[in-house]
């Protein structure tokens, strides 16, 4: 490891992972540039849009405002970790069914944040869904389809259990 670099070990989408990177890189930059997981998006870079949201130890955080070195020892889930091999996560299916994605740029952040909500509160109501997703901005859909998709996914997941 060179001067000015860090090495971390963490669990990324269920796999033990180690990665070396320049100290100044954010988790978002390391995911995209060092680990080639480009599902997580660069948005505003300042915590105003939610496009870079990932789960760290199950909680949604903004990967653009987190230094990657802080992810050492954590469990990180990105949008690439939602599907079960070729089977989409119920949230991903519902987003497709409901037209909850148009340009798709904000979708990974919405999916990760919604997953955290349903993991914690599988029967979340419309108000709880809109509050949980308040930090994610979508400029295409007008949000209604997104809320409906989360409700549809919650209903499907409840039936499966």
């Amino acid at each position, binding site marked *: 490891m060179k001067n*000015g670099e*860090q090495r971390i070990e963490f669990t990324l989408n269920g796999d033990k992972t180690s990665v070396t990177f*320049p*100290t*100044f*890189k*954010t988790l978002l*930059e390391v995911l995209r540039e060092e680990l080639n997981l480009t599902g997580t998006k660069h948005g505003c*870079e*300042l*915590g105003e849009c*939610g496009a870079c*949201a990932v789960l760290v130890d199950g*909680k*949604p*955080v*903004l990967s*653009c*405002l*987190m*230094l990657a*070195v*802080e992810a050492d020892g954590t469990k990180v889930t990105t949008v690439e970790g939602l599907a079960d091999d070729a089977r989409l996560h119920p949230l991903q299916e519902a987003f497709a069914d409901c037209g909850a994605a148009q340009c798709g740029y904000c979708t990974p952040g919405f999916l990760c*944040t919604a997953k955290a909500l349903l993991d914690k509160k599988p029967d979340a109501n419309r108000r709880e869904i809109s*509050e*949980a997703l*308040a*930090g994610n901005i979508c400029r295409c859909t007008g949000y209604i389809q997104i809320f409906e998709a989360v409700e549809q996914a919650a209903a499907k997941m409840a039936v499966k259990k």
Partner: protein
Amino acid sequence: MTSPFTFWDARTAEEAAALLSKKGAMALGGGVDLLGEMKEGIRAPEHIVNLRSIPGLDKIQKTDRGWRVGATALLTDIADHADLRKDLPGFAESAEAVATPQIRNQGTIGGNLAQRPRCWYYRAAEFACVKKGGKGCPAEKGENRYLAIFGDGPCHIVHPSDCAPMLVALDARLFLRGPDGARDLPIADFYELPSKNALCEFTLKPGEFIEAVEIPTALPRSTYVKIREKDSFDFAIAACAIAGKIDGDHFTDARVVLGGVAPVPWRSVTAEANLRKNTIADAVEPASNSATDGARPMSQNAWKIPMTKAAVARAIRSFLPR
């Protein structure tokens, strides 16, 4: 992202104070504000000292003096703490009012209290304003619609914290740690007007950082009302924190502190007096009207005066029986 720095995981408060004494060192809590400043090109630390690696610094605990909340406690954990909310409802409400769910999962109480202003001239590297060691305030003849109506310059930022006005109302004490040891002070004394120090809103000596905040439970009734332009998440355009004691239909003790309208949490003693000498229902009008006494709006922000009165009126009304 930015220019290189050396990263340190502090293991103890003493070690953090020693590391923060290095030239160009800055403390890292959740990073939400610091990384933003670095990306905006207005901050380039040579050393970043992580405080979240200090075991136990995130504790939220009840003591014989009230509640002690460690500096790295997350805003989410404060908002979700059922026992704390019972004793200090306004504090939990203020933590819940901050930013977005994701930011509350990262942001710490220490960082919230020591965050820097959002004034666009301050945040833009190309303006050498008085807060950044330059001359004058470009907002005086420029865009000032979201800026201060109190404080009289020479810098007209509004303090961005939601928790700070509430903690001033609750008469909290801040515990600071530095290379020379620990000290504590009323949180109101932590903040300084630009006329005293235009460069920074708070008083920390070199190497010092916030270790904890202690909140007495002597004022059991409290609330925080925040008015934002965008309801999903935003900084306050006006906010009102009230903490006090209620006997029957009136306040026997009341502290009223405004947010989003001054460079520091702005206590309104006249609103407090009006709140104490009337029943709660009768206090709404005189207390909210007097809360903006002494306000001196800039060219574009007189609209914040009725907005502030509305925040105070809503806060008082929340104590009326439903």
